[in-house]
């Protein structure tokens, strides 16, 4: 007689212990950027981008990532000494060579016995950081892992990308499912070699394949990853209460959601890009934080990241008891969305160092 052993998916042993978000205070209006460069008046509306967050001269990937991680640890109410891994997903690290993760980890008081790496995969390295943290926790290698997505995204002045490329960060503290307020039910990743967006060594700004970034890149990879997740877990769109997608603009997540069979009502709660822009590695992860801050225990959330090059991670997350209490332990995404100060294009250009000055 043979017995079939039930082997749980490793990710089901883990969950979210805490989360944190940082959005810079400065905002520049998309209409102002579009007007300056002579884009179609309707373009910001078509893309659904109203304004974007602008990191100031004293904000970068490290400072924003540090703040988001600090809040994640506070929400988790754990001793940072027990964190065994810190991953920073970014495509705008302050140093070309020298890890950002070590700066953030030491500033937070994380244990010196740890793994710590900066990761680059356009907008989805933060999502891969979460997968790595899940694997390390599930295998028993570490107790807690910290995955951060943080970017001060670059866009060439006058490129359509400039309407959306913005700054922000999100951090997730991953730990044992027993301590978590949201558990991972399943996670899959779909990756191909698709050159839709890139920045070459030494280039100040990225290049992109224009309309090629849509169908063969963003839409294809997210749809494939999410369908893979549905098949593996035996779930359908109707089983989810929320769907959060990477948000290069406000329009794409609604379109990809429609393709997958999600009504607008399940996507809108996680939408942030129209008011802060595309925070790249922060994008889907800030959307998830916004959803966690309104979700009820038992509700199921779909998250799908996207990174150019290209790939997508799809997560199924189920909210657990105790989440409401965690929400109150740090600034909420809604608070950060409201905390803003408008700046002109010239102030934005100064903040993002678009003017080249001769110093000394």
């Amino acid at each position, binding site marked *: 007689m043979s017995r079939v052993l039930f082997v749980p998916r490793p990710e089901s042993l883990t969950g979210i212990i805490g989360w944190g978000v940082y959005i810079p205070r400065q905002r520049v209006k998309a209409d102002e950027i579009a007007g300056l460069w002579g884009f*179609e008046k309707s373009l910001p509306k078509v893309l659904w981008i109203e304004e974007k967050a602008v990191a100031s001269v004293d904000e970068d990937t490290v400072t924003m990532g540090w703040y988001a991680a600090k809040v994640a640890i506070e929400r988790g109410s754990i001793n940072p000494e027990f964190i065994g891994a810190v991953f920073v997903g970014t495509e705008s690290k302050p140093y070309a060579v020298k890890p950002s993760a070590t700066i953030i980890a030491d500033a937070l008081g994380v244990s010196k016995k740890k793994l710590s790496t900066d990761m680059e995969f356009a907008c989805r390295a933060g999502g891969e950081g979460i997968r790595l943290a899940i694997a390390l926790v599930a295998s028993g290698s570490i107790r807690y892992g910290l995955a951060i997505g943080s970017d001060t995204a670059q866009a060439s002045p006058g490129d359509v990308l400039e309407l959306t490329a913005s700054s922000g960060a999100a951090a997730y503290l991953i730990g044992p499912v027993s301590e978590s307020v949201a558990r991972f039910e399943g996670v899959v990743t779909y990756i191909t070699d698709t050159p839709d967006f890139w920045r070459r060594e030494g280039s100040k700004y990225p290049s992109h*394949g224009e309309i090629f970034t849509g169908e063969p890149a963003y839409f294809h990879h997210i749809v494939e990853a999410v369908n893979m997740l549905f098949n593996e877990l035996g779930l359908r769109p109707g089983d989810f209460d929320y769907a959060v997608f990477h948000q290069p603009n406000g329009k794409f997540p609604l379109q990809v959601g429609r393709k997958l069979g999600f009504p607008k009502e399940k996507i809108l709660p996680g939408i942030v890009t129209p008011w802060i822009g595309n925070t790249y590695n922060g994008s889907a992860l800030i959307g998830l934080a916004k959803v966690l801050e309104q979700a009820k225990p038992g509700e199921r959330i779909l998250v799908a990241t996207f990174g150019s090059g290209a790939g997508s991670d799809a997560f199924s997350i189920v909210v657990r008891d105790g989440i409401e209490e965690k929400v109150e332990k740090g600034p909420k995404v809604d608070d950060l969305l409201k905390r803003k100060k408008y700046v002109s294009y010239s102030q934005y250009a100064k903040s993002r160092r678009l003017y080249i000055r001769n110093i000394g």
Partner: protein
Amino acid sequence: MIGSALTKVGRHFNRGYKELAGEVISNVISKSGIESVDLVVVSNMLSDSILDQLDLSTILMQNLGMTKVQALRIETGESSGLAALEVAWAAIKSGAAEKVLVVGVEKVTEYPTYKINKVYGKIVDYEIEFIRNITPPDYAALIMKAYLRRYGLKREDIIGWPVKMHENASKNTYAQLGFKVSPERVLDSMVISDPIHLLDTFPIGDGAAALVLTSNRVLRNAEVEPVELVHVSSAISVQMHLRDDITRLPATATVVSRLKEKFNEKVIREAAIELHDSYSIYAYLLIEEFGLANRGQAPKVVNELEFINISGGLKARGHPFGATGVYQVAELYKLMTEGFAGKKFDGKYAIAHSMSGPDYNARLALLQKIV
């Protein structure tokens, strides 16, 4: 002409030029009911600069396993397609070939717009014009300004063409931009080169089209409905800076007057016409050069012309550069036989017109139904 085939103009990210050309060649050969051809004339504008490929006709034939044919590539800027037709026509007329395959193919979307615009700009004199940053849309803008000033028109007065072209393209399943636009949307679209807006000009796209031409001897045994290619003509004009009046298109005027001499004006008035409307201002000037409206009056007659650019024109069907002229003729062949873009045409004649840049060269082909 015993057959035509075309593929939808668009951004074919998953297909290269070999696949695009291969598809239309295999379609047109099977439709024409012939087993072989003597000569293949390939028209293509940018293979050397965009695809890094010289001798395109040889490489294409090798890849399609067609090594028993003669093949050559033709390039005369934006009018390459009709130039290929001219060569095919001459080969048959001279007796050098009996069955000729004309293939227009262009694959440009491997690269971003700025790169495509840069190589497209080389259709004007690189050493004199391009190098001073004068490109085809700039000339179109200067001509449009001159036209508006000459006839006291406002920008809004010449907006009917793109609206009509999008309307036509909405019925053409092979068109790249098969959606309708309002006059407001044209005016609100991005400025490309003032006063030219994005919706005054063609979209960037890939495409392939093919035709089979035969001699009368071969035609006698053909089982398909033929259309006669009765006249092909081309001309070259002087550069923009040497023109007395930039609102005239001299090369087109030459080929039109030759057509009138050989046939008559009635042919033009009764024909279904495909015009080279790379910028909407050119459509108005061409309507006037063809004698379909008096000078300065073209904007008023646009909506009365039924069989003009029923494909949607370069504006909305699209402009896969070297393939465009072949598209025009392939569409007109379909229109005269099975019908095209939701239309049937009872007339006897059809005219394809193509030019490069601001009429630096112009080409014209006259098709006639065989009754």
